[in-house]
């Protein structure tokens, strides 16, 4: 073993090293980090391997009905988990379309959150499910709602030396869910994505939706969701809903599509996803 790679046995030991070794980075699956190291985009002084941290492993249903996914849980295990039921199925749907089998055998939800690629498939679903991100650092533990976790392009609420310990999705009313990923080919990062779930209360059904890859963080508008309540079958109401999300978009131009193309897709992808879910609901 070299001094370059550390294998902490507890979260406290891991964050202790991350805080005390300048230039140290945590490594989870390595799928994004090793690619960046190979391209010489990042040159860490030390890698703190989170693999052995028991606290970061696996999915569990909490006493209050919330679902906790440890940061080291791989895409493969999320895609195959029977614990994801009801609205939480959204995470399974997203995990199943990340990259390809070998990458899903490596990558983790904690690494995806730490990397915060605007096109990462978990971000929209976590936002759509009102998830909270559990964080640990040398000065202790805290929890940040997904709505406040991403601060900018590849920038998160994690302070230097802090790590993601888990993502926690609160219990939610059951309702149909859909994760729609628009990509050039299967396995590519999303050009745009849409995480959608239907939620019904006494006042009618509405859609909870988060659009991915159209800005540094997923787009969601709770206000627009309330305006849409009861109007899922009304094309104009759905179009207004799409326009409301589009208004907050800030997409990039890249090989996957121009910013303009992404903007145009927002209302269309939303409308088609809503049509698919409401259609399926009726049947």
């Amino acid at each position, binding site marked *: 073993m070299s001094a370059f790679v550390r294998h902490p046995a507890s979260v406290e030991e891991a964050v202790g090293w991350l805080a005390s070794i300048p230039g140290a*980075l945590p490594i989870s699956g390595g799928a994004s980090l090793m690619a960046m190291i190979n391209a010489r985009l*990042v040159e860490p002084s030390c890698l703190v391997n989170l693999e052995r941290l028991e606290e970061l492993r696996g999915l569990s249903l909490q006493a209050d009905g919330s679902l906790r996914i440890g940061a080291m849980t791989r895409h493969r295990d999320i895609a195959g988990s029977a614990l994801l039921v009801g609205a939480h199925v959204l995470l399974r749907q997203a995990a199943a379309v990340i990259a390809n089998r070998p990458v899903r055998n490596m990558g983790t939800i904690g690494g995806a959150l730490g*990397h915060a690629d605007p096109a990462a498939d978990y971000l929209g679903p976590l936002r759509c499910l009102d998830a909270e991100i559990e964080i640990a650092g040398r000065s202790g533990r805290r929890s940040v709602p997904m709505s406040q976790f991403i601060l*900018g*392009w*590849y*920038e998160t609420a994690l302070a230097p030396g802090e790590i993601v310990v888990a993502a926690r999705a609160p219990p939610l009313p059951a309702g149909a869910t859909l994760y729609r990923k628009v990509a050039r080919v299967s396995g590519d990062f999303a050009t745009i994505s849409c995480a959608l779930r239907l939620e019904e209360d006494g006042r009618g059904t509405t859609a909870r939706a988060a659009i991915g890859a159209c800005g540094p963080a997923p787009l969601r508008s709770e206000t627009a969701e309330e305006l849409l309540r009861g109007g899922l079958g009304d094309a104009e109401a759905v179009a207004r809903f799409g326009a409301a999300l589009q208004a907050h978009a*800030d997409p*990039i131009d890249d090989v996957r599509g121009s910013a303009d193309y992404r903007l145009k897709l927002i209302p269309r992808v939303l409308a088609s996803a809503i049509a698919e879910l409401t259609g399926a609901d009726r049947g």
Partner: protein
Amino acid sequence: MKFAGAFDVKAPRPAVWEKIRDPGLMAACIPGCDSIEKVSETSYRAVVAVKVGPISARFSLVVDIVREEPPTRLVARARGEEGGRASALSCESLLSLTSLGEAGTRVEYEADVDVTGRLGKFGLGIMRKKVEQLSEAFVAAFRGRLEPAAAA
């Protein structure tokens, strides 16, 4: 990558021009600029650090003023490398200043930035967003220096 934009400053044109030609002030306003050193009346050396998510880079730049027509137009060229990492940056920029009378001065800029080497791999889409963010930060800092009241 081409960029263009404009911003207004509540200060008379000659004052704005003077600040633009003041390397110390520019160093303080350019985000990530660690130092500017004057080589001649029209040539400077600068060190600028940029950070995009996990990726950090430090460029050593040579900035040449190619043409200037005080107090209205300035054409500059910056070129530089990232020590030993085979990554290079070049930028051609044009600044023009228009007097708005009592309202101050409008600064219009156009720039053509090229990044090659390892940073190019990260994708131009995200680089563009970064440059846009940096220009906003610059404008805010620059205004702060010229409009003491607004900065307070």
